């Protein structure tokens, strides 16, 4: 059995199914429109830096839309049980690891598509307003550096946690934890907000794009974050995501062996 072909096939179909969910697009567009009313760089004076506006816009997209990604990825694994395809899948030659990795990557990449679409609209507006195409490569790089690892990190936890937690409970806890952690980082429960594992991308943003700590660029920024710390954060987010999926696979295999 060619595991590579199987993995790519799973990735393709999971991508297709997630991308064609109406809820995905409606949620992102509705919440994107809502949040960007309150947090946007459009009305900054034209004399300010377009690059700063692009980086700020990237941070806003990640801060507010990544939570939507987490919510919409939470049902991908329990869905197989709900619609009763899991028994058939357990009798097929495809390994659990191939199927789960394909599901994780396919669903998460598909979830990034509407995020990127909304991001692109904002970036296009900045390009037009500041009348400069020079920020386009920065827009692409900042999206890849700040948004992608954060969403991959969140996606892994969303898919894995709902293997053991009821979906609505996970979604409530996740939203609560996300906003509590980012808005009130030093109050009450410990959070990842000021740590190198912050999925909002504070270390990456400051380290790569705002090393001098200028106000109004990274939202949120981390004072003193260097490019090295930014790189560490980037790799740790992706590495942790992979570990979480590996742990999920081990759990599913253990569960199957117990039956």
């Amino acid at each position, binding site marked *: *059995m*060619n595991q590579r*072909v*199987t993995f790519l*096939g*799973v990735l393709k*179909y999971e991508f*297709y*199914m997630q991308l*064609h*969910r109406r809820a995905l697009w409606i949620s992102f567009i509705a919440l994107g429109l809502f949040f960007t009313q309150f947090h946007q760089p459009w009305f900054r004076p034209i004399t300010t830096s377009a690059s700063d506006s692009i980086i700020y816009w990237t941070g806003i997209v990640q801060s507010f839309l990544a939570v939507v990604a987490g919510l919409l990825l939470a049902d991908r694994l329990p869905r197989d049980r709900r*619609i*009763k*395809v899991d*028994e*058939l*899948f*357990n*009798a*097929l*030659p*495809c390994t659990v690891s191939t*199927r789960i990795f394909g599901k994780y990557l396919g669903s998460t990449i598909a979830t990034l598509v509407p995020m990127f679409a909304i991001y692109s609209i904002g970036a296009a507006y900045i390009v037009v307003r500041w009348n400069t195409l020079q920020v386009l490569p920065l827009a692409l790089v900042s999206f890849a550096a700040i948004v992608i690892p954060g969403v991959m990190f969140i996606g892994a936890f969303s898919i894995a946690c709902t293997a053991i937690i009821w979906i609505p409970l996970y979604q409530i806890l996740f939203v609560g934890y996300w906003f509590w952690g980012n808005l009130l980082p030093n109050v009450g429960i410990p959070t990842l907000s000021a740590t190198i594992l912050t999925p909002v991308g504070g270390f990456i943003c400051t380290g790569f794009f705002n090393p001098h700590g200028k106000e109004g660029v990274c939202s949120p920024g981390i004072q003193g974050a260097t490019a090295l710390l930014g790189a560490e954060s980037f790799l740790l987010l992706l590495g942790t995501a992979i570990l979480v999926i590996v742990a999920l696979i081990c759990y599913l295999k253990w569960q*199957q*062996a117990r*039956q």
Partner: protein
Amino acid sequence: MMNITINHLDKTYRGGIHAINNVTITIGSGMFGLLGPNGAGKTTLIRILTGILRPTNGMLQIGEYNVNSEEGRKAIRHILGYLPQDFGVYPDLSAREFLDYIGILKGLSDRTGRQRRVEELLEIVSLTPVSNRKLKTFSAGMKRRIGIAQALLNDPKLLIVDEPTAGLDPEERIRFRNLLSDLGGNRTIILSTHIVEDIAQTCQKLAIMKGGHIIFQGTVSDLLNKAQGKVWIVTTQGIKPEGNITVMSTLHLSGSVQHRVVGELTNYTGAILTEPNLEDSYVWQMHEQRLPIQVNTL
């Protein structure tokens, strides 16, 4: 030829539920029926055969593969076609897309070959005209046909179908049975059902399960012979016959009522002995076990 040998198989779930008790059975090639009421242990046995569940005790050999080992279970999945009792589909995929996806999961790596196979199977199950429709628009019967199509994608040597006609209308049921009958040949096909008529129309050999045990194993003729002399037509004025019997059917005629009964009938004048059918024989077999009988009529 694919022979299946099961020796002293047990399955006990957590909580001490004995789903299968000391099952010993041999299944050769061709159509084999696994009959029994709900809760008999058929689906548990099926799930062990497919490698989804592990037995608590016992030995299971499918062809050259020992299904007690992880390697054996992995190997079986490559030659297996399985239609589960609770068969679900991804509602937003079309029939063609779903079959293509399952084909990928079954290891059919060659895209052209896989697509050709998908088209062949859509034709066999008469779903080519609707192959681009989303599966959420399919009726129960159409989904079952997709189910059998996906089971056949890898041209399996062992095909297992669990309650394939439950919930289908008579026409769909007949279509499904005919489809299964056409699939025999060098394959081993196990049809697990609680509907006696499905077995009667398709299988020469069968086993009956009850309470986790095998209470009969043999040919359809053997089962029919067991009920010889036990099936009667009794005509009354309306009162149901009593005694150590099961009333199979009641037909209201003008002025009288005709009952078909299975059992030991005494003291009924005018009772006519009649040839048993498979349903009668099944009921008689259950009757002999002195356990509550469930008669499944079409």
